[in-house]
């Protein structure tokens, strides 16, 4: 019997550990922001709040939550609720959530879906039911080409970020031999393809890395053997950090540039500050501290953290929906018309949507960030064209 006891106790200890640890990490899990004077309208957040990609989702949720809270503060007589749909970023889990979302007729609009993969399965469902979609983060260009009539994108897509990164490689790095890497993901490959086609003959080689790969010897060897002087990495930080470390440790001094998926502090800690120094990261997101108005301070106050990737974009997206509701557009159809015709200043940029749902190209801004002294700091806005 004793060994059974050990098993049971072991299981209990494991779970206790996990619950204890996790509750310590998560302080704000309140889901509904509705106060009194609720007149019933809702907007939804759709994206990953659990699983491996949760951090990005949490940034977005917090941005939207801040917008809703501020709105409710000013409009106590008609508060709006934020509904949270946690997809874990998985296309498999998205459709049932989208279906439950459309069944609640009080939900007029969605901030999200956060990723491009889940967007592909959730957006047709949402669009068919007329729910207004404003994604603050899904940057795959193909999303706007499906004729989804309620789709809007509140930031530039990969087709603008890719050429911007390529322009940086050409004009700032003045590179002559570029090596392009992607991780075969929807996002990474899309971005890398854009870079490749813009750079054209400057590209001397390319490679595909695997998800969760940690040993990049073969790729690094390839980069060395073609003597590349610039490396573009289209993918996420989990693979980029060890890659950058091994690239530098092989003695290569090729300049490193990557997309927004790599713009996280762990790039610096994982690769080592010395190895990461000078790495350039592009992002269709403006530096949080440069956002207009009091957003950065408000966000810090509400969440205890500085605004992170996509927080400001999601704040803007939520505000567009809320403005529409305030203006009396309280059906999905009316709200969609409102967003289609919307023209206004947000904290990130000036919002005006094209008929296919893309942001007006004039409003798209791509920023370059730079690793400097062990920190990711804003470098400059990249000029387009």
């Amino acid at each position, binding site marked *: 019997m004793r*060994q059974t006891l050990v098993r049971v106790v072991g299981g209990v200890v494991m779970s206790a550990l*996990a*619950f204890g640890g996790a509750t310590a990490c998560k302080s704000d899990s309140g889901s509904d922001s509705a106060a009194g004077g609720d007149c019933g309208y809702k907007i939804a957040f759709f994206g990953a709040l659990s699983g491996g990609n949760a951090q990005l989702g949490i940034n977005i949720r917090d941005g939207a939550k801040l917008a809703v809270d501020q709105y409710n503060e000013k409009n106590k007589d008609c508060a709006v609720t934020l509904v949270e749909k946690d997809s874990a970023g998985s296309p498999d889990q998205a459709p049932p959530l989208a279906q439950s979302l459309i069944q609640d007729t009080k939900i007029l609009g969605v901030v999200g879906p956060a990723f491009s993969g889940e967007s592909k399965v959730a957006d047709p469902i949402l669009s068919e039911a007329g729910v207004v979609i404003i994604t603050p983060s899904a940057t795959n260009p193909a999303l706007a080409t499906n004729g989804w009539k309620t789709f809007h994108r509140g930031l530039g897509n990969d087709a603008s970020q890719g050429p911007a990164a390529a322009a940086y490689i050409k004009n700032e790095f003045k590179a002559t031999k570029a090596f392009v890497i992607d991780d075969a993901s929807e996002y990474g490959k899309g971005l890398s393809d854009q870079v490749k086609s813009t750079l054209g003959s400057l590209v001397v080689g390319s490679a595909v890395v695997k998800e*969760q790969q940690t*040993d*990049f*010897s073969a790729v690094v060897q390839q980069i060395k053997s073609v003597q590349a002087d610039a490396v573009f990495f289209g993918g996420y930080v989990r693979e980029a950090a060890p890659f950058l470390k091994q690239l530098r440790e092989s003695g290569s001094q090729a300049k490193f540039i990557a997309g927004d998926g790599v713009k996280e502090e762990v790039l610096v800690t994982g690769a080592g500050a010395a190895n990461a120094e000078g790495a350039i990261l592009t992002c269709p997101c403006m530096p949080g501290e440069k956002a207009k108005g009091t957003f950065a301070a408000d966000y810090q106050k509400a969440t205890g953290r500085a605004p992170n990737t996509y927080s400001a974009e999601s704040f803007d997206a939520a505000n567009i929906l809320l403005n529409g509701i305030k203006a009396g557009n309280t059906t999905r159809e009316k709200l969609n018309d409102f967003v289609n015709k919307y023209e206004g200043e947000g904290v990130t940029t000036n919002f005006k949507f094209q008929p296919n749902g893309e942001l007006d190209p004039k409003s798209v801004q791509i920023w370059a960030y730079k690793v400097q002294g062990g920190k990711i700091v804003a470098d400059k806005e990249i000029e387009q064209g």
Partner: protein
Amino acid sequence: MNFSFVGDNFLSLTVTGLTQGAIYALVALGYTLVYGVLRLINFAHSEVFMVGTFTTAVVWTALGYGVNDPAPGALGVVLLVVVAMLAAGAASGATGLVVERVAYRTLRKRNAPSLIFLISAIGASVALFETMGALTDRQPRGIPVLLKVKEVFSLFGASVTNLQIVIIVSALAMMVLLDLFINKTRLGRGVRAVAQNPDVAALMGVNKDRVIMLIFVIGGIMAGFASVLYDIKVGTTTYTVGFLIGIKAFTAAVLGGIGNLRGALLGGLLLGVVENLGAGLFGNEWMDVVAFIVLVVVLLFRPNGLLGESLGRARA
């Protein structure tokens, strides 16, 4: 297919492959020991390794060696590595022990079929990595850079760095020690006896339970050592790090002949090299496919792996 690239860089790819293979080999020992004695796949061994990778990070941080500190001098490096190995070995060994007690012992007493053990071990694996996921907020964690990597000597044009030497040499030293332990000591003889015939060994007065605990702990310690080398090499870890390394290490163990310690070494090194050459030849994305196809081909011709099974007869 890129023959000219592989041709030009054959030695470089082999050296880097050996480095990765040394880590596979150390992890593979855990699978091989448990399989050799119990004839079971310890599915949770990958998480034993994962726990080790985090231990190093935590211990170094606790010692005041932060992620942005400059690399320490030679004495500092040795000190940090020794401390990390002790801590990670202890943490992983303890995890191995917990896995044995929680996921294996009751079932062993009931003589359950091996499928049930597999499921129980999968449960332990899930519980462990999910716990770590919750504790780390599911974020990757950076590990301080230990070595200022530089080329030590050049082997026919392939540069060999201090990092590679550290990893390969310490892995080999570990393997030799373990081999001596199993083959020369009293406890090691007990392990071999139980592996050969548990019933007879029990009749001869070998404490089977203790032997089984021992192999879980030793496998854990080896995985802990591997995790330190991994941390030095890779520089980041996440809660899901074990799964892939675990599958690779298990493949290595099967390749060399599961249950056979020297087979684990051979399988690990071979897998590392084959993978790296395959990645050079067919493209990095086909690395795993190459590894598995090699495994199937080897098993077709040598159904018990390259060096054959059996921990008990490893000496013969």
